[in-house]
């Protein structure tokens, strides 16, 4: 079991709660969501505590992430999209801290569960559709009708647009989920090789160096992936929000 690479994704009930036949227990997943939110918010809070005109290291990091997301959003959705900044910033920080939390041994990776990433993706799409219809009314659906397309092939183009729109939450959630899941499994498998090889005596210990090096390299890669996937998630969120703000393209 210690070598089971899947075990790290198991969910346990910490506080069993059941309402109307639904299992709504507070699980280790919930605990790590709460920790992610607490650490993310706590970091931003303590970093901005000094309100320094000349930022310290911590404040620089917080400001850097702020400017990073702000530029991302402004570039893809324009200044009108800036009203979604708190939302995109929350998504980015939540996914980033959640991913990085997964890098601690024995910690639960909330983003390695499809339902979590799918719920986040659906939230994004829900905001896009909800705001688009609220702001532009039914004319928002013109987002599926590109201008300048000949009438004959227009139905096909619209069909393709609709399918591509519907696949967005799937691709958005599966990308993040699969990256985190695969990365953590690989890491665990190689780390498991180190343990099982070193149990085989002197030769095994010599041989264990290779998977150990691999584990070290993979750990670095996983840190990169943790950041990169948070970035990708946020950047795609920005692009989808652009559709809500500017439906005519």
């Amino acid at each position, binding site marked *: 079991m210690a070598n089971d690479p899947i075990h790290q994704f198991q969910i346990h009930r910490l506080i069993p709660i059941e309402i109307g036949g639904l299992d709504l227990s507070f699980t280790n997943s919930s605990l790590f969501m709460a920790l992610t*939110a607490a650490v993310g918010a706590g970091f931003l809070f303590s970093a901005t505590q000094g309100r320094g005109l000349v930022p310290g290291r911590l404040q620089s990091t917080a400001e850097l992430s702020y400017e990073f997301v702000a530029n991302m959003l402004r570039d893809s959705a324009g200044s009108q999209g800036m009203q979604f900044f708190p939302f995109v910033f929350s998504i980015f920080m939540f996914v980033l801290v959640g991913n990085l939390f997964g890098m601690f041994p024995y910690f639960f990776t909330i983003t390695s569960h499809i339902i979590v990433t799918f719920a986040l993706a659906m939230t994004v799409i829900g905001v896009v559709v909800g705001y688009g219809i609220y702001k532009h009314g039914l004319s928002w659906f013109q987002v599926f009708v590109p201008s300048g397309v000949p009438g004959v092939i227009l139905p096909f183009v619209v069909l393709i647009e609709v399918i591509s729109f519907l696949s967005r939450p799937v691709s958005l959630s599966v990308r993040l989920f699969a990256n985190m899941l695969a990365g953590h499994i690989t890491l665990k498998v190689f780390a498991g090789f180190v343990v099982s090889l070193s149990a085989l005596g002197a030769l095994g210990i010599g041989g264990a160096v290779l998977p150990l090096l691999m584990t070290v390299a993979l750990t670095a890669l996983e840190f990169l992936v943790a950041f990169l996937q948070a970035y990708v998630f946020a950047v795609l969120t920005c692009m989808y929000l652009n559709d809500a703000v500017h439906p005519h393209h």
Partner: protein
Amino acid sequence: MFVTQAFAQEADAPPTSHALPPSDTEAAQHGETVQAEGGHEGGFPPMNPQYFASQVLWLAIIFTLFYLVLKRVLVPRLAGIIENRRDRIAHDLEAAERMRLDADEAQAAYEQELAEARQRSQAIGQEARDAARADAEAERKRVEGELDAKLETAQARIAEIKQTALADVGTIAEDVAESILTDVAGLTVSREDVAGSVRAAKS
């Protein structure tokens, strides 16, 4: 705490891989299909729908709280700090620009003053030079005038002396002629005759 609990469950679980792991027994009692995905205990955990409702609920609660805290408190704080700095930098740049303009102005005023002073000094020099020249001219004229006057006086005196000398020549000639006549020729001539002869010889 959760880690130790996880360990405890880990320790319990392995021998009964065909049975339900402890955390799944409750669900099994509620008649849920725990082994929906088959294979692994309780299915492949990241896809296991058993905890979907719980995860969605807690994600909704926690993410909403996170979003609200960020929106209400942290984003305005960060934005305030960054805005504040931007304002300060803009303000400082503006002040620097103003100071530069002031410096330029002062420089221009200084240059102007310098040019004026130079002009003034040239004017003063010119004036002094003119005055000195005029003085020298006047002095020269005065000296020349004096010299002319002296020359005239001297010429007048020379003419007078000449007159006297010429007048004396007659007397001397009479004396000489009388002496010669008396001492050499042994003649006795009156003074008037001698004078008359001298005058005739002279003219």
